């Protein structure tokens, strides 16, 4: 194979076959994929969970991960948050002419690795190549299918008195990507994306108690997701600032760039609203798992201010925690 992606790789001809046969199939190796039919024929006649996500992260590599790891985690986690057990993924690339094959191989290896960890199969996919200057290196879409395990998850189940749990420290992914993008980050430093598969944490939480809803706080961070839980409803999320786990390195990076960790994306964290009597058992279950050690109860559902999220500040004041409006720009002020 060549050392860079050229338009030929997207044409459907010899180079495309070469790419599929010698790079993609060996990396993902499973029965439905190996048939290389137009669609993958899959087992299962139960209720399904279906999700899709596209990934355009720049730079494609950041401390703690790359776009490959992210594209598996993103869709797998969405299925897990919806109460499904993730099983199958599709994988579509849009590559810019000139993208280095070496980098693509690294990404594919990450995808294969993460898929294995997630116990999902990549069963179908597509590759397109666009002219130099018409893309941004690499865009990926993954769509996923899972088997529904828990149909009783959703905003409609949230009740006053419920506890709000986060599975770990917040803002790591967003902060590390912004730092990498700004060129400020030391590659081997302590700031890393939190990108990880959440299936086991989701299952453990649901097995340990009555979970009303699960969500992974990606774009917009925990602030945005918590707003989505209660907007247009009579309910309020009341958070305690001191209870929200924020790593010191994330706090420093956010200070440096003028960002707020509560709005920074997490790619390996789970927000759960849980029946009040089950908060201790759910926390206990999460604490026993890798990635859940810092799980904490950060607030409660009340009815004080319909549709809003309130933060009780460390100084004893109260303020609104609104949805993210527009993307966060690195600030000086």
């Amino acid at each position, binding site marked *: 194979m060549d050392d860079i992606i050229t338009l030929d790789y997207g044409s459907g001809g010899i180079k495309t076959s070469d790419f599929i046969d010698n790079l993609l199939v060996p990396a993902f190796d499973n029965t439905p994929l190996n048939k290389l039919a137009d669609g993958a024929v899959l087992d299962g006649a139960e209720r399904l969970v279906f999700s899709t996500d596209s990934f355009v992260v720049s730079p494609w590599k950041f401390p703690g991960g790359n776009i490959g790891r992210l594209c598996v985690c993103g869709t797998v986690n969405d299925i897990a948050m919806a109460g499904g057990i993730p099983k199958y993924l599709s994988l579509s690339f849009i590559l810019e002419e000139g993208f280095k094959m070496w980098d693509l191989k690294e990404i594919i290896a990450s995808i294969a690795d993460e898929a294995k960890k997630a116990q999902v199969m990549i069963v179908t996919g597509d590759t397109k190549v666009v002219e130099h200057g018409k893309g941004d290196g690499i865009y990926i879409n993954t769509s996923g299918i899972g088997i529904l395990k828990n149909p009783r998850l959703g905003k409609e189940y949230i009740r006053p008195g419920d506890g709000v749990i986060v599975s770990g420290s917040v803002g790591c992914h967003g902060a590390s990507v912004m730092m990498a993008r*700004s060129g*400020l980050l030391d590659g081997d430093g302590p700031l890393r994306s939190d990108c990880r598969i959440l299936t086991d944490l989701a299952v453990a939480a649901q097995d340990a108690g009555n979970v009303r809803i699960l969500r992974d706080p990606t774009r917009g961070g925990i602030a945005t997701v918590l707003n989505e839980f209660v907007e247009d409803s009579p309910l309020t999320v009341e958070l305690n600032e001191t209870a929200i786990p924020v790593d010191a390195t994330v706090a420093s990076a956010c200070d*440096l*760039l*003028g960002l707020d960790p509560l709005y920074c994306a997490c790619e390996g964290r789970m927000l759960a609203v849980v029946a009040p009597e089950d908060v201790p058992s759910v926390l206990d279950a999460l604490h026993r798992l890798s990635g859940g050690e810092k799980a904490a109860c950060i607030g409660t559902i009340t009815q004080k*201010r319909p549709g809003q999220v*309130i*933060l*009780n*500040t*460390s*100084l*004893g*004041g*109260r*303020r*609104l925690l*609104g949805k993210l*409006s*527009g993307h966060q*720009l*690195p*600030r*000086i*002020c």
Partner: protein
Amino acid sequence: MLYESYFKKPKDIAGVIAKVRDLAKMTGPVRLMEICGTHTMAISRSGIRGLFLPEIQLISGPGCPVCVTPSGVMDEIFKLSDHKNIVITSYGDLLRVPGSRRGDSLLRRKALGAHVVDVYSPMDALALARKNPGKEVVFLGVGFETTAPGTASCLLEAVRQGVENFSILCLLKPTEPALRTLVESPDFNVSGFLCPGHVAAVTGSDAFAFLPEDYGLPAVVSGFEGADLLCSILLLMEMLADKTPGLVNEYVRLVRPKGNPAAQEMIRRVFEPVTCEWRGLGMVPGGGFKIKDEFSDFDAARRFHLTWHEGKEPAGCRCAQVIRGSLAPGQCPLFKTVCTPQDPVGPCMVSSEGSCAAAFRYEL
């Protein structure tokens, strides 16, 4: 890190808050003003703004250097961004700010093809210019005395390295002249000032002595952490209760009476005072900095023959009054109804230090 965590909140926070409330009973209702956008945000974000209502109103004054930049200037910047060969570099704070026409902003222009890059430091803009010799790189130099010395250093570095495709649009402003204009205006109604700690780190706390000495107004130079803000409010209330207006430096770990002479010298080396328009205050004598003639080659205003036309304020916009502190964001009829961060009418709603942005985002 140098006890920074100590300053997050006072040891005896309940005691401090109780004492402030007691003093407020003695003074009666008071209005205290801060004149630093970072204070605006810190006070709202920490929940302090509502802590002492209704006795103590914490008002935001003209502390956001982006908000006080008139719309006519923004219009000229947008025109500049139209040129295919020009790269506009700016702090993130400016990117959503509209000009005379609603909906226009550097961010929107970028989506339509203009070269706009947000930078953390003017040095990043200079580095960009060095890497792109075929492009004209303009840095939007907005800020007060905290930012001025760095901007000056950057210009001198550009001169030293001969980076001819780099220029600075100097929108820097000193604090004192505008503050005097504000205090001397007929509708001025504030009892005391929280003074900007990082401006004072450069100018020295003595630079704010004119407030008690010339106007009888108590002033406290304040840091930005929770403990700094609460202690500074306490200090102001004590002076008001005793009727002994003076200047106190609360931020002793960073601010010295005479400030940082090397930084002040850097400002003087490159800039000189000029009369300048502040949104909300009109023309302020000595209210701006301009690049000295000897550095005119790196002055974007001269290089691109920019002239400031009087921009029209957008219809119904009350930013001018909000900036002077005579109208609270919530009192503006457009607040939240017509003017939102997604679709702002004026800068106060979208500058990352704007009073309306803080109120929209944080106030209950």
